[in-house]
């Protein structure tokens, strides 16, 4: 795809958003019947499915921790997910890294001590990608965990902030992300006290730009949190004459 010269023109980005706008997000919880908890998130052109199994018996047994549960996360991109051919899906360098960081995010949030010697699995499939999939994945996985009834301290929201044409911009898409002069900073925060659970940086930022980054992320996180709780409420309380109207949107 041809790269445009300027990514921000008159304060508007390529897809018509301002610098502080998120892409349109919609979340559906409890979309799968066999998983204990699940969520489907549509974040702009990203489409991410997260499923949770557990707590269940730890396998292999020697991995089990007698004091707490262990979390396993699997992030995987489908071969048809991106604009360029992604090749055969399966673990590669990138997906192993992202699986690991998703695991670390939720190890800080889930009350693991309640389920000793067991494991909680988080499976994430990227059905379509357009930049910022790890943030969408963490947001969806948080909803899926809550839907599975797993006790957590917090809901987790994640969003990327970056530098495009020397401006701090919220929620980068693929073109902005891959522009060579910018910076890309995915951040995950705990909804309750704004603890930083994930912080990665690709590129260079000034010290003064950091404050701007965090204020933008915290504002966006509040908006995402509202959507997450709405998605969960919709599953159980969307009613019509006492009957559940729309419970299972996928099947």
């Amino acid at each position: 795809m041809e790269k445009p010269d300027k990514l921000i023109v008159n304060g508007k980005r390529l897809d018509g958003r301002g610098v502080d706008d998120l892409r349109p997000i919609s979340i559906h919880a409890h979309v799968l019947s066999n998983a204990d908890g699940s969520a489907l998130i549509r974040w702009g052109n990203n489409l991410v499915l997260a499923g949770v199994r557990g707590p269940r018996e730890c396998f292999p047994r020697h991995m089990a921790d007698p004091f707490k549960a262990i979390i396993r996360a699997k992030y995987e991109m489908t071969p048809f997910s991106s604009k360029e051919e992604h090749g055969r899906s399966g673990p590669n360098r990138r997906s192993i890294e992202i699986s690991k960081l998703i695991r670390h995010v939720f190890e800080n949030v889930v009350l693991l001590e309640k389920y000793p010697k067991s494991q909680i699995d988080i499976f994430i499939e990227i059905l379509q990608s357009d930049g910022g999939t790890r943030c969408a994945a963490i947001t969806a996985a948080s909803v899926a965990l809550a839907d599975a009834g797993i006790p957590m301290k917090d809901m987790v929201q994640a969003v990327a902030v970056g530098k495009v044409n020397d401006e701090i911009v919220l929620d980068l898409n693929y073109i902005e992300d891959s522009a060579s002069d910018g910076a890309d900073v995915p951040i995950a925060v705990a909804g309750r006290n704004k603890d930083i659970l994930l912080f990665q940086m690709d590129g260079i930022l000034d010290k003064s730009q950091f404050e701007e980054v965090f204020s933008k992320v915290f504002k966006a996180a509040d908006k995402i949190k509202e959507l997450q709780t709405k998605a969960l409420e919709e599953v159980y309380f969307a009613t019509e004459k006492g009957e559940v109207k729309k419970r299972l949107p996928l099947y």
Partner: protein
Amino acid sequence: MDTVYPGLQLDKSMYGQPYTYSENGKVYSNVFGMLRNDKIVPLQGQYDPKRGDIIIGVVNEEKFSGYSVYINLPSEGSLSSRDSREELETGDVIECEVDYVNEIKQVSLTNPKKLGFGSVMIIPPVKVPRVIGKQMSMINLIKEKTGCDIRMGKNGILWINDCKNKPIVIKTINKILREAQFSGLTSRIGEFLDKEIKNKE
């Protein structure tokens, strides 16, 4: 209806209640659920074994010292043959009591009663109180109207004996699970059962 979600700050009077945690003198919820009579009712989740609970299990394996029993938990329950008055076989459905839960949530069982021919249904354990009802009103209503024998274990395993109205019972249980979060359920289920039984005849 008030819903709660993980990390939502609650009133201080909720301190120490189940499904809450406190940090810096503030009380927070740790599950997704609803607030009813100042108590958190979770909408999903696993069975939390407690001593004295009556549960239903399926015998999975016979060992030389006893049996291991599937009880809808990550680890299987163990039943010593010394505590068992009857000889059990693999596949038997038993109603038993939780004798002891150790620190890694392994369950030992006692006092098994063999349940005869029938079907087993696994439902979310958080919805068991709704299936049983206040003072067993719901389960007695279903038993009375259909003439089936139903046993509900606290771990979410339900046993129905072989009877002619079994499909209606299964339909009713599914309706209860779908509408568990709404009030006035018992009367609605009564009407539903009347209609179903009339349709059948």
